[in-house]
């Protein structure tokens, strides 16, 4: 008899919306997802902030045996440690006398692994190209090739990123013989490095212009030869750093004696790296 009761009197059951997780109502679920979204947003913002703080590194690049690791150890540990050819990059944080901190990255100079500096380019505020001033007359071509890579990388940065400042360091200036002129060691080193590099870069620029290069394998549109040496002087004139279109290029002459500490330097009155530290101070101001 029960089943003869009019079934149609009862309202048709609407399909019930079951909560996703049994036992919780939709309200708590909405609240929970909101909290989750908030935490994700916060994490995202934090990561953005960390990435925005980039642009605070000094890159030490240059041909092998020029003294980059020695400079890094002097800046970081206040003493010049003996060093040999680097196998990997070193990155350390240095406190400048002007009370700012600076990250210093020392990239190995060996031709096979020197392209690692490209990874740090995005982070770089300044690039110091270290050259051994005492042997640059012998291996000028190789040094110029390395410098060409750096210049090309600087000029191919996206325009949204501020170009890093470039300093060419004529290092190991204490090994030069000044001869009879009265100018300081640093000036002699700087002038020698500047003339040799300008001459070699001019040769490189000439050999690239007006030539037909060989395409690289793979994509058709990629250019295989490197630019980066455009200069604003009159056409046909030799390459000069003052005319370089990529930015300002500064020079400084420095040296760092192995085994010396900061206290020894204070006593003798000369600081080998003062060219570098002065330039860094100037930059941070």
């Amino acid at each position, binding site marked *: 008899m029960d089943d003869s009761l009019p079934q149609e009197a009862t309202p048709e059951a609407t399909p019930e919306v079951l909560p996703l997780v049994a036992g919780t109502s939709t309200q708590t679920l909405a609240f929970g997802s909101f909290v989750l979204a908030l935490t994700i947003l916060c994490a995202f913002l934090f990561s953005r902030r960390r990435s925005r703080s980039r642009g605070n590194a000094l890159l030490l690049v240059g041909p092998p045996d020029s003294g980059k*690791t020695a400079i890094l150890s002097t800046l970081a540990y206040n003493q010049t440690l003996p060093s040999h*050819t*680097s196998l990997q990059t070193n990155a350390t944080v240095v406190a400048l006398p002007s009370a700012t901190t600076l990250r210093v990255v020392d990239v190995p100079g060996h031709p096979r692994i020197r392209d690692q500096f490209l990874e740090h380019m995005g982070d770089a505020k300044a690039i110091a190209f270290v050259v051994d001033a005492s042997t640059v007359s012998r291996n000028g071509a190789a040094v110029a090739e390395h410098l060409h890579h750096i210049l090309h990388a600087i000029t191919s940065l996206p325009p949204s990123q501020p170009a890093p400042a470039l300093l060419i360091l004529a290092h190991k200036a204490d090994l030069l013989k000044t001869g009879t002129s009265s100018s300081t060691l640093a000036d002699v080193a700087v002038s020698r490095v500047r003339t040799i590099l300008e001459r070699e870069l001019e040769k490189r620029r000439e050999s690239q212009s007006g030539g*037909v290069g*060989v395409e*690289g*394998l793979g994509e058709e549109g990629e250019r295989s030869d490197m630019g980066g040496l455009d200069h604003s002087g009159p056409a046909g004139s030799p390459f000069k750093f003052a005319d370089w279109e990529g930015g300002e290029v500064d020079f400084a002459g420095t040296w760092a004696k192995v085994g010396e500490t900061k206290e020894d330097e204070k006593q003798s009155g000369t600081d080998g790296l003062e060219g570098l530290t002065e330039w860094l101070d100037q930059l941070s101001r």
Partner: protein
Amino acid sequence: MLDHCSISHKGGVVLWSRSFTPEASHIASSSASPVNSLIREALIEGRTAEEKYEKDGYAVKWTFVNDLELIFVVAYQRILQLTYVDDLLAALKALFIKLFEPFLATFVASLHALNSTKSASSVAGDTTTSWNFVKAFEGWDKVFDKLLKGFEDKAAQERKSRFRSTVHAVSADPSPPSDDLSTIPSESSVVPQDEQQIARNVQALKNRLRGRGGRRGGRGIARVESGSGRDSHPASDSESNKRKTKSKAQRKWGDEAPSEMDMASLDFSVDKPSGTDGHLSHDLQALVDEASLGTRTRDGMYEVKDWEFGTKEGEDDVIARALKSDGTTTKQTSGSLGALGSLFARLTGSKVLTQEDLKPVLEGMKQHLMKKNVAREIADKVCEGVGESLEGKKVGGFQTTSNAVRIALSSSLTRILTPKTSTDLLLSIRTKLSSPLPSTQQRIPYSITFVGVNGVGKSTNLSKVCFWLIQNGMRVLIAACDTFRSGAVEQLRVHVRNLSMLGVNGATDSKGRVELFEKGYGKDAAGIAKEAITYAKENDFDVVLIDTAGRMQDNEPLMRALAKLVAVNNPDKILFVGEALVGNEAVDQLTKFDRALRDFSSASGAGKGRGIDGMIVTKWDTVDDKVGAALSMTYVTGQPIIFVGCGQTYTDLRQLRVANVVQAILSD
């Protein structure tokens, strides 16, 4: 006995070093020091799999500590055969880390400062702790001295004991010492019954003779040391079994009767049961790739699968697949907690890679490289080098072992393929042509020689290079120094005719820009090359391209002839032309060509021998992505690949892009 010993960080800072001779200390700080040469030539080039490195009379041995990024190097004179160096390195490593681990950890952390804001506070704190390296390592000198003395004393004692035993053996012999082998039976009254007894007697006699020779020589310390070194090698190498011990096995000449052991291994007449069942099934699985089996038609015939062009496989983890197919031989999961334990260890960032973790992954990578046409030895060495650099390293986060291996392998391949000298041929040509003239009036032209085995495409690629040089405004002379193969000169004449007809920069033709210099067949190639260079000098040509005959690498008279051509003419570049299809042969070809050129051209008194300066890889279009030959060739010589030939027309000349090649090798 040692010359130099140093402990340093991979980033270049030397933590401790000691030189034992004034000469060693003098060059230790220069760029020619053994440590610097080792790093520049062996470690950066990725040849870490080799045991020893020798240069300038120094033998250098080294070892790594990968989680603290340290290198331990010991250098000694090459003529000394020091047996305890491996043990010394292992002991140094263990002691140094045990004594100074906290300091080293902070030092390494300071060299990897990632985030400047995070460590700003730590920097402020660290300025109080001055980095006094001398103080930190002060106890180390004494420990090192004690260790070294212990090893040297042990080696001296072993030498003395070997001396004493040979002296005893000789004094037991009543007859006067003689080298006559016929005195063997007089030693033992019993006639030797079987071959093993004979073999043992022969070995005993050889030992006696060696010891006798040392005693008679008097000053033959090196001899005795070498003898004791060989004998004590197996005993003292139990610790350092990472390095495969290469104790010299006696060469088996064919004229000896085979020993019993040889007979057993050479006897195929009886069906022996194979080693283990697992081994057998693994072999079968490797023989057939299940995915490429054909189909059976309705008649029961087996039809081969069709060739599909350009299929892309979905799965791109090649290592996972290699490991899966290798399933029968994978190791049991080691460790107390197994896979779960290692996952937790990885998430907390403290998982240390061990040999067992790396072995299957490296094995899979090696198979993958060989599938991409990399020579077997090279694939072996590359994977071994990667394994050595990763062992003991901490891998954290969500990075799996295979991922870490893949990254390390990619960077190692990039390092091997990146040229260490400039590959800009035009620049070197222009530099030479514009260099200040010596007293002679005429300019010496730039000469390039093309060498290689038969049929690789020397003449074709020579004409492609010639076309490129003409496009850049150079005047080129082609010297036909292939006087052996019929039609070689005519082939070059056809090329020169074609190139003259192709104009450049709007000119209708290039007459006068390229010429052929030939003297027919059967003449001496070196003489023709010399005359060609003189002709080019007189007629103001810029570049001379010298085409040589193809020759096999083990044909000694022909290699000597080639070396004579190189020694007489001293070309500016010697380019080895090799084809991309070559497999394991590449290693053999290049080593023999390089060595033959160096040895024979220096023997003729020209000073330092010339080797191969660069390579051209041809027929690149025949291998789509199996480009492993490029890797084998660069690994063997260390020289860059200057051009790549990919077709038969004059414009089919390309430059190599390292990133593309690495990607092609590592892709599926």
